[in-house]
């Protein structure tokens, strides 16, 4: 019996792996092409597209395109802007959203249910449908900074951060997680005389690591990949993030090598981050689908 099924089983397993690998190539090759091309001079890059060499680091390999990209645009500035905006927004939004979720999950107060359901209902509003009126909002808001009060938020860092500090999805994720935590912990802390903020900081935050990781990853992906909003609010080069900085590479006679170098620079760190933490990344996305 075993002698009959064994070759059959092997053949089937081989066929399954072949299919999995074929599909994997569809996802890997464009990204591989991007990285490999960033190392080649333009002429060779174009020539190589007609053969398998497009995916191999062969021929005249160098980092020239990377230097070229830095000469063409203030790449370092763009990368700094993106990291700064993303980092500050992720940190503050984790704090504000988890704090609000804590109150929604554990405290009773008038109006709580209504406010929570309004917040959840905003999940149905795509950002793209409010981007235009949002321009009006930020254009007429005051901001108190180092130079006193200024009107209008265009061309600043905060215009790219403040609108995204609180969002329904992040609050929702935290509420779901907090609801399942044992209530006894909180009651014990309260009886010991801890204030609500102390309960949040000393009891809940230390045991909520997984949901903080999930929310941080989702927010990170959204913020780092922002395009439409910074495109509209950053006419000034000083505050532009990497995705808008791409426009420097759009020119008519595109220098493809430099384009690929720039794309690789702004993508590889995220990919590396993903490959190291891939379990957490995938769990984050999956958790957005737990509740319909």
């Amino acid at each position, binding site marked *: 019996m075993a002698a009959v099924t064994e070759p059959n089983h092997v053949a089937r397993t081989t066929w399954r792996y072949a299919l*999995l690998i074929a599909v994997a190539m569809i996802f890997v090759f464009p*990204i591989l092409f991007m990285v490999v091309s960033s190392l080649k001079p333009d002429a060779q890059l174009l020539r190589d597209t007609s053969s398998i060499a497009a995916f191999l680091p062969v021929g005249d390999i160098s980092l020239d395109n990377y230097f070229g990209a830095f000469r063409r645009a203030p790449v370092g500035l763009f990368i700094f802007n993106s990291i700064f905006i993303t980092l500050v927004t992720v940190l503050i939004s984790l704090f504000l959203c988890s704090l609000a979720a804590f109150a929604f999950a554990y405290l009773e107060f008038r109006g709580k249910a209504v406010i929570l359901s309004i917040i959840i209902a905003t999940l149905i509003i795509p950002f793209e449908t409010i981007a235009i009126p949002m321009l009006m909002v930020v254009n007429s808001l005051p901001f108190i900074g180092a130079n006193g009060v200024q009107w209008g938020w265009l061309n600043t860092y905060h215009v790219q951060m403040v609108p995204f500090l609180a969002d329904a999805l992040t609050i929702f994720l935290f509420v779901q997680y907090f609801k399942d935590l044992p209530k006894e912990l909180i009651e014990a802390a309260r009886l010991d005389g801890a204030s609500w903020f102390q309960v949040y900081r000393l009891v809940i935050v230390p045991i909520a690591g997984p949901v903080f990781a999930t929310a941080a990853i989702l927010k990170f992906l959204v913020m780092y990949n922002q395009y439409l909003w910074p495109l509209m609010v950053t006419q000034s080069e000083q505050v532009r993030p990497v995705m808008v900085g791409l426009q420097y590479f759009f020119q008519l006679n595109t220098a493809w090598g430099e384009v690929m170098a720039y794309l690789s620079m702004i993508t590889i760190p995220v990919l590396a981050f993903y490959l190291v933490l891939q379990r957490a990344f995938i769990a984050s996305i999956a958790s957005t689908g737990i509740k319909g």
Partner: protein
Amino acid sequence: MSTSGPQKSLQRHPLAGWLMIAPAAVLIATFLIAPFILAFGYSFTNQRLISPNPTEFVGLRNFEQLIGVGTLVLSPETDDAGVVVRDDDGALQYPTVRSFTRANDDFPHLQGMQEWFGWNWGDDRVVVLARDLVFMKALTNTLIFVAVVAPVQSALALLLALMINQKLRGINIFRTIYFMPVVVSIVVVSLLWRFIYDGRNGLLNNLLEFLSFGLFQPIDWLGNPGTALWAIIAMSIWQAVGFHMVIWLSGLQTIPVSLYEAAEIEGANAWQKFRFVTWPGLRNTAVLIIVVITMQAFALFAQVDVMTNGGPVDSTQVLVFQAVQRGYEQQNIAGGSAISVILFVIVLTISLTQRYLTRER
């Protein structure tokens, strides 16, 4: 701590509660709810980003401008004897559409409209006119994009999830790879694929030429009105399909193994197991995925902005792109808001319909 006992004192703390939700609530009210309400408000005015004149209420004019359509039935030209005129090729001659839409007092409702599409009906020619041709193309293209992407991407994502759900050594490596494009920005992907789709040196043309032994004629995928939207569709699916694969996968893993064992004992084949065990267990996941993909698809913007700018000949115009063109580039906040409102109403209608059709019975 009051005398009301520990249980009660734990719960009733209005001040602490309000203080903790206040920052998030104020931010959401200012940057989500206010602009949302303003979108409706502005769409009934002539608001501009910066304007010396005061804003005026204009009623439904913005919407009439956008969605105004009309039809026109053109009869063939006849000569003095009433015989239809034919040109040298024998084709019928029609009066120009322009003669009805420009300064023609008999057709005031068609004033300023442009020909959208038309067809022949007997000897007559029926022409559909639109007041805002670009908007109509943007609306149609967006609907085509959603109608193709929602089912195709959901189905492919399910297929990938089923492949990844097999018990094979090293399967997690494939899961990691299939998900990879999701973490790459759609802006990066769009620029990268502009090169893949290139008419001369593009990878896709070279690949197709190789696979067809040189028979395939290169196509400028993004420069051709017939292929540009489809090129954007294919690339968008490539980038996002891993996202929904993961959601399907978490749905698949909630189905109890015992159900599969029972089906096996009953002698079910692979298809029957999918049809009677897997698919019923994925019902809620399916609704969620279709709604999520639909909403994401309506928001299509970056791909168009980076790859085609709406061209060639408006074949990739879409709603968000038009809203940004008007609201931002032309500083016409009212016009952009009106498109946003139409977009939101469509998204809301479709997701409510989807939820209603797939409700628990």
